[in-house]
């Protein structure tokens, strides 16, 4: 194989190879080339996204740690901090869904563990092609099984997430996992290596050939041969992870570690070079001291293996014995595989000989590509929507039932019942509400979590959709009564080397960044997954936002379900519904078209903040935001959840189907007892609001248009997604 063939097969371009020659001042050997290949992949090096990502605001009064560390961290109060991050495992899940999803969960848990936090909650944001296709049904079923199989066993509750189906995700599912950890602020751990002569200790499982070049695989389009890349997918062992978690937390409890880092994409290479680069030191790894799972592994294989359930720690020599003792107690492997050195290189030693040596900072400094942002041609056609060509439904009740039973709007109960969402006994609000609510034991405080993505909107308007994604997360947290404080994101996009993909990425980021500024929610961590394309095309641009909010008094929270007969229904926020890009237009008419209204961020914030304040004051216990399916679906969900009906009138000014099923963001439906109405009016001063009906009875009726019994609605809403999937 020629040199060019070699580096090309490793995913490096001519330009990048030239840069390596320049940096080293010599030709790299195969091992060194492999190190660059994995570290300069998009997955590890962010070479297409880094300049764009700098748009995100990262600072805020509660931010203790922003991007660049293993996870973002925000201060909660009473000395507590929350660490969180979301990450994709899209490509592995496309070829081996069970293990791909399972190791996605395992990987994000270790990111949280690496900052010293106990992982306490998981969320999963999933997207698949339509269930009509056998392959999509298989991927959906196995991904959900994989998440449950890993998360349930490792003992971290899966408390929320989302699932969506659309043709754009056929063959390229999106599997994003978010983990949240709880840590005493003063016990935060950094990943910066220091102290020449300190030992580098590999904790956890043995190293095998699984996941070789996984990071490179994740940075390429999926094609015909992708199925053969199953060996790029790692295999998870949640039991090993559980023991690794308990072991690391015990080591940190006794302050035995100088630094800690998880092993994820690009394995030892990535962890060791990042720890060295951050500390401005070198690290020497002796590959023959790495405990192996199989014989005959080459040093380069050991260096880039993505075997799961491993962590890298820096330990002072005098503390090694105690570290080894605790590791034994938990049945966790602990091997000294190298040491911190003063030379600044990631040096690989095998049987006493140096087999490769590269400055760590060069590995951590992937080249950056900035491209021209060109508006793609598809937008003009896709954004045009002639409402006159969309006939109103003949039977509005049937239309509502059709929407409620649509796989995108139906209850997610058949999914989340496969996840243990209560282990840890801190889950105050279980899945099904607008956001999960968790308590912090020993305090009155709580926190709320949500993940949100709006692929359809981002496809039709990347900038507006990006902003709407952040706004939706903000609204969801506000609905349960939590103050949104910060977010993590996973940017799922197509190939950035294509004009369309780059435009979508750049514009979505612009929109998200603007919303983050307007709403005061900085980005503290994130992950980028590009090249989500198959021969059928790119996925919808789908930035997924994982947002965290805080509750001073966790007992004061709201849920969507109607709790009493006779409550007044009040619609809060600026109601300007549109069918453009709506779930209704796609579900009922098969159209992904139109120019959805861009979020009106100041009014969005005012409405959400007012509702949150009313919940936190104990005034409101029933709130639900208007999202996919509009007012009609929001009302139906509230009624079905509570087992109490409602009657509502429509607000004037829009076509009836637009008013019922249209979407706009920024609106929240609350239900309050009549006697609190006046107080609520005061709390909502300055925010648009309208009384639209009252709760009661066992039907949903909307003046002359809809009149459907709750049992019929519930039957549609709670249909099992997998029974459909079973065919």
């Amino acid at each position, binding site marked *: 194989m020629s040199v060019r063939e070699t580096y090309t097969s490793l995913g490096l371009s001519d330009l990048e190879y030239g840069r390596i020659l320049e940096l080293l001042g010599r030709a790299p050997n195969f091992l060194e080339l492999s190190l660059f290949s994995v570290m300069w992949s998009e997955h590890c090096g962010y070479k297409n996204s880094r300049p764009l990502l700098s748009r995100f605001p990262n600072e805020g009064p509660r931010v203790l740690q922003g991007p660049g560390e293993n996870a973002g961290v925000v201060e909660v109060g009473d000395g507590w901090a929350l660490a969180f991050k979301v990450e994709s495992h899209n490509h592995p899940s496309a070829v081996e869904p069970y293990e791909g999803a399972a190791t996605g969960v395992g990987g994000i848990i270790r990111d949280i563990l690496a900052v010293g936090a106990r992982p306490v909650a998981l969320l999963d944001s999933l997207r698949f092609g339509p269930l009509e296709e056998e392959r999509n049904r298989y991927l959906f079923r196995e991904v959900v099984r994989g998440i*449950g*199989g890993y998360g*349930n*066993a*490792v*003992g971290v509750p899966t408390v929320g997430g989302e699932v969506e189906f659309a043709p754009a995700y056929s063959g390229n599912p999106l599997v994003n996992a978010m983990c949240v950890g709880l840590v005493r602020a003063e016990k935060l751990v950094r990943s910066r290596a220091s102290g020449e002569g300190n030992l580098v200790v590999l904790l956890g499982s043995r190293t095998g050939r699984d996941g070789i070049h996984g990071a490179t695989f994740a940075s390429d389009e999926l094609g015909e041969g992708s199925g053969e890349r199953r060996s790029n997918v790692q295999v998870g*062992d*949640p*039991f*090993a992870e*559980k*023991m690794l978690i308990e072991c690391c937390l015990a080591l940190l409890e006794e302050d035995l570690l100088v630094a800690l880092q998880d092993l994820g994409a690009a394995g030892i290479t990535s962890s060791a070079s990042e720890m060295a680069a951050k500390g401005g030191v070198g690290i020497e790894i002796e590959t023959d001291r790495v405990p192996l799972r199989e014989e005959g592994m080459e040093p380069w294989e050991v260096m880039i293996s993505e075997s799961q359930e491993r962590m890298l720690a820096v330990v002072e020599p005098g503390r090694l014995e105690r570290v080894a003792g605790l590791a034994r*107690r*938990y*049945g966790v492997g602990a091997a000294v595989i190298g040491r911190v050195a003063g030379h600044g290189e990631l040096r690989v030693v095998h049987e006493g000989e140096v087999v490769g040596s590269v400055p760590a900072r060069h590995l951590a400094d992937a080249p950056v590509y900035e491209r021209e942002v060109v508006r793609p041609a598809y937008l003009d056609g896709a954004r045009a929507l002639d409402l006159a060509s969309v006939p109103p439904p003949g039977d509005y009740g049937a239309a509502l039932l059709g929407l409620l039973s649509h796989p995108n709007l139906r209850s997610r109960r058949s999914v*989340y*019942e*496969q*996840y*243990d*969402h*209560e*282990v*840890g*006994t*801190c*889950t*105050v609000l*279980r899945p099904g509400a607008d956001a999960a609510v968790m*308590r912090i*034991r020993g305090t009155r405080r709580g926190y709320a979590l949500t993940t949100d993505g709006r692929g359809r909107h981002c496809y039709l308007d990347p900038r507006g959709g990006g902003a709407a994604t952040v706004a939706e997360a903000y609204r969801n947290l506000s609905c349960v009564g939590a103050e949104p404080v910060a977010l993590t994101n996973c940017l799922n996009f197509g190939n950035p080397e294509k004009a369309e993909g780059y435009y979508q990425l750049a514009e979505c980021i612009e929109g998200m960044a603007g919303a983050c500024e307007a709403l005061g929610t900085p980005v503290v961590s994130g992950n980028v997954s590009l090249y989500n394309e198959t021969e059928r095309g790119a996925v919808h641009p789908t930035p997924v936002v994982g947002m965290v909010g805080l509750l001073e008094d*966790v*007992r004061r929270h709201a849920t969507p379900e109607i709790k009493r007969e006779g409550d007044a229904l009040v619609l809060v926020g600026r109601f300007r519904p549109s069918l453009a890009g709506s779930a209704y237009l796609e579900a009922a008419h098969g159209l992904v078209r139109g120019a959805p209204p861009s979020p009106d961020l100041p009014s969005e914030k005012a409405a959400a903040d007012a509702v949150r304040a009313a919940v936190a004051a104990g005034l409101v216990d029933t709130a639900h935001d208007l999202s996919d399916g509009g007012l009609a679906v929001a009302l139906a969900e509230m009624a079905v959840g509570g087992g109490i009906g409602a009657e509502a009138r429509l607000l004037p000014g829009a076509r009836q189907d637009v008013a019922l099923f249209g979407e706009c963001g920024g609106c929240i439906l609350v239900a309050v007892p009549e006697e609190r109405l006046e107080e609520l009016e005061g709390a909502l001063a300055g925010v648009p609001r309208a009384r639209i009906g009252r709760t009661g009875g066992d039907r949903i009726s909307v003046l002359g248009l809809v009149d459907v019994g709750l049992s019929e609605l519930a039957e549609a809403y709670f249909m099992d997604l*997998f029974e459909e999937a079973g065919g």
Partner: protein
Amino acid sequence: MGGRGVRVGVVVFPGSNCDRDALHAVERAGAEPVELWHADADLKGSDAVILPGGFSYGDYLRPGAIARFARVMGPLEAFAREGGPVLGVCNGFQVLCEAHLLPGALLQNRGLRFVCRRVRVRVERADTPWTAACAPGEELTLPVAHNEGNYFADPATLARLEEEGRVVLRYLENPNGSANDIAGVCSEGRNVVGLMPHPERASDPLLGSEEGLGILRSVLAGAKV
């Protein structure tokens, strides 16, 4: 009660994940929680012992199959044979079956899916140390979360369990296909109880239910201190 509170031990196997929840719930119930480590053959003077839920040893081979050989199981089995109150919850129930301290086995759920939900159950018997504070016939809503909760025993054993009044808890809505809707059984001596539902998850009104607390409190009344 004497000079000290009732000590309730909670065994931590590698892979247990409801151990801390059980310790907290025991404390809420008014007892003194004691952590018992799987590798130590020592019950630390516990008056009662709980085997918690989770995935001991990863549930590899079969749920509970490896845990039954843990060192702590020696003194635990002796304690159980002497009439000491032992409660196995979820994975703990599976361990007790594997250890033959309880009859039967827990197979994969009939729906072939992990199931995490709240289910209604009926307390069939209050004459065990773990249900003494409940009323016979009392209906509770308790969380389940398991993949292997489908109780199975041969027809003769099932008939005997029913005849001897050893079905302690019965599902009113069977989530897993269990024979005779069995959610929990007890040993011949009635002191060893296995439950698939998690009482420790229903022991705090903030989390939506306190209906499991009765089970944890039962042992306080009956324990020999």
